[in-house]
């Protein structure tokens, strides 16, 4: 071990010397702008954290490099408003634990002096990160946390370009109404199953309320502890309820278990409408294979909306190069967009001062066509919530995700087995 350690040290020293001898640029470039990113890089949600890291690095490469992507700041060459300064990401591992997320965020702010923090996948970690950001008066850009309660904490340094589970759930019920009308086979009942942290609990609460408003019966509402060793009893309860649509809010490992458990119980739900998260994770598709066929999920991204969002192929290709050929998905696309929003605000603020940056974020007004998202645009309300983000419904058909709702932007008709 000692020998290995010495070699490492020697290697590091050599590298340092090489750097020292490298020719210096004639004119000092503006200093890099440091941006913190807190994600689960180890533990159960590590695949998501890893993808997030690659997505953010992809967008940083677009901003700093010369890839000429047809979207806002896609020309590259750094931020013109700050003399061509480059953005530089500093990642911290939350281990998907709210306490660790908090201390890591604090470390990024106090030691690395980042100008803003982007995070964090799970809403439970976003609660602690956003609060610490607020205390230190540093903007927190919530890339893909979807719990609506995050915007209701009274935080003034919180900004979320993505729709929340409120909007997402509304899209699901809009879809039920529309497809019911179209096919004559409406949804009469749903079964809700959710993990019991902030994300799942919030999501289930909204789903229950919206089902009631739509006159749809909730046959069962199952709450379970995330990362449980078995979901077979839960699957049995779903089978017993036999609702028209099963509505899960789950992270990846549980999503895999659940789909396997339902299959093992000999139960094929007529429809599954997932609250994104685990069900949209490429690791889920890889792990359950053909059992993913027909799964529907709300999403804020549609990879096939190339006609109206010309930047998608270029960003997707760059992301693939960063992340072992993985395709952009709902999560990674929102991470790309989060950094784009932050970079745009920095560019317009022409300063890295926190108050100037917040003022710029508050006046954000990006048209949808300048992003890769199918949204109308990005404009924040007083709580820092984007009011122009509209979700879509995707369905996994013949090995790929297709947009099936709203019908106006759909790229394939929904496969609808309810009422058959």
């Amino acid at each position: 071990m000692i020998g290995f350690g010495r070699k490492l040290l020697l290697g590091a020293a050599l590298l340092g010397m090489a750097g020292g001898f490298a020719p210096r640029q004639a004119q000092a470039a503006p200093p890099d702008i440091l941006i913190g990113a807190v994600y689960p890089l180890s533990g159960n949600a590590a695949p998501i954290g890893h993808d997030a890291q690659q997505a953010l690095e992809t967008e940083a490469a677009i901003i700093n490099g010369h890839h000429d992507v047809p979207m806002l700041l896609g020309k590259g060459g750094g931020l013109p408003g700050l003399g061509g300064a480059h953005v530089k990401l500093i990642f911290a591992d939350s281990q998907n634990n709210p306490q660790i997320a908090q201390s890591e965020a604090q470390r990024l702010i106090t030691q690395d002096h980042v100008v803003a923090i982007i995070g964090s996948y799970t809403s439970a970690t976003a609660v602690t990160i956003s609060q610490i950001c607020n205390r230190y008066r540093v903007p927190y850009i919530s890339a893909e946390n979807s719990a609506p309660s995050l915007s209701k904490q009274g935080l003034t340094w919180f900004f979320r370009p993505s729709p929340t589970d409120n909007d997402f759930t509304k899209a699901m019920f809009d879809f039920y109404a529309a497809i019911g009308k179209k096919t004559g086979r409406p949804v009469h009942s749903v079964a809700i199953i959710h993990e019991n942290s902030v994300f799942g609990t919030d999501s289930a609460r909204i789903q229950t309320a919206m089902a009631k408003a739509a006159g749809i019966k909730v046959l069962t509402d199952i709450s379970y502890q995330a990362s449980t060793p078995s979901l077979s009893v839960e699957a049995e309860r779903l089978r017993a309820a036999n609702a028209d649509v099963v509505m899960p809010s789950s992270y990846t490992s549980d999503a895999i278990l659940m789909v396997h458990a339902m299959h093992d119980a000999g139960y094929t739900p007529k429809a599954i409408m997932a609250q994104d998260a685990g069900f949209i994770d490429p690791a889920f598709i890889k792990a359950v294979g053909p059992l993913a066929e027909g799964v529907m999920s709300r999403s804020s991204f549609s990879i096939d909306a190339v006609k109206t969002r010309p930047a998608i192929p270029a960003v997707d290709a760059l992301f693939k190069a960063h992340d072992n050929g993985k395709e952009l998905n709902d999560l990674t696309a929102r991470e790309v967009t989060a950094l784009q929003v932050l970079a745009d605000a920095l560019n317009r603020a022409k300063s890295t001062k926190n108050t100037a940056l917040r003022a710029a974020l508050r006046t954000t007004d990006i048209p949808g066509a300048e992003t890769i998202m199918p949204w109308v645009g990005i404009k924040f309300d007083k709580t820092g919530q984007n009011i122009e983000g509209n979700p879509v419904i995707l369905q996994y058909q013949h090995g790929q995700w297709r947009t099936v709702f709203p019908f106006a932007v759909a790229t394939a008709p929904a496969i609808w087995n309810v009422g058959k």
Partner: protein
Amino acid sequence: MTASLVAQVAIGGLLMGLVYALVAAGLSLIFGLMDVVNFAHGELLMLAMYAVFEIHAAFGLDPLLQLPLVAALLFGIGVAIYRLLIARALGVRFNTGMVQIFVTFGLSIFLVGAAQLAFGSDFRSIDNGVLSGRTVHLGQIVLPLPQVAAGLVCLLAFAALMAISRTEFGQALEATREDRDAVALIGIDRDRIFSLGWGIGAATVGIAGVMLANFYYISPTVGSNFALIAYVTVALGGFGSLAGALVAGLLIGLVEALTALFIDPSLKQVGVFAIYVAVLMFRPRGLFGRL
């Protein structure tokens, strides 16, 4: 709620319980033998599952056929862990208890990190094994074949462990357990017994890992889902008792499933830990434990 649903859930719980029991058996064996709690036990399970996955991916060998292979591999890993780490930790002159805890705890963190580095953090699963996705129908009760097979193999493994404990080696194990200094006087090589104990303990969890890989996802942190339950199982059944591990595993599987069915799925661990607390209060040595 129909009778067949209750039966289905109960049988499912018992099958899962057999897996819990086998995972716990290896832990119990090592603890009973030398009073060392192996905090890396769940990670041994994870290593076994990755071994199955990688061998399956490379050679297309069905998980079931890999049983002897992976058990032997894990046996070797167990012996290596004893020789390289535990034997040294036992030789420390001060704070021995702490050193033992930190050694296995550190090993667990190391193995999770190493697995993430080597295999990546993605979730894997084997979906084209002989058993994958098949179900057995008993009237209205539907049971997944991989879990039925896992239960059977776990029972066989228990039978093998019981048989081993009756052999001369088993008696040497037992004697070493009772008085590790006295056995040296009658010519038993304590070090050899300990390393074989670690080998068998790891091989046991290896067998559980092979059967789990048939129906469970594989990830660097998969071990922790089972490790906590294994500790409870060992404490419940009595430290060092094989029969105790078996009964406790079955009990935990059953209680977990029935709590989820009759009370609430999010409370299933509450049922398990309620029993645990009760045992600690009224019978601290566990159901089958000897003092």
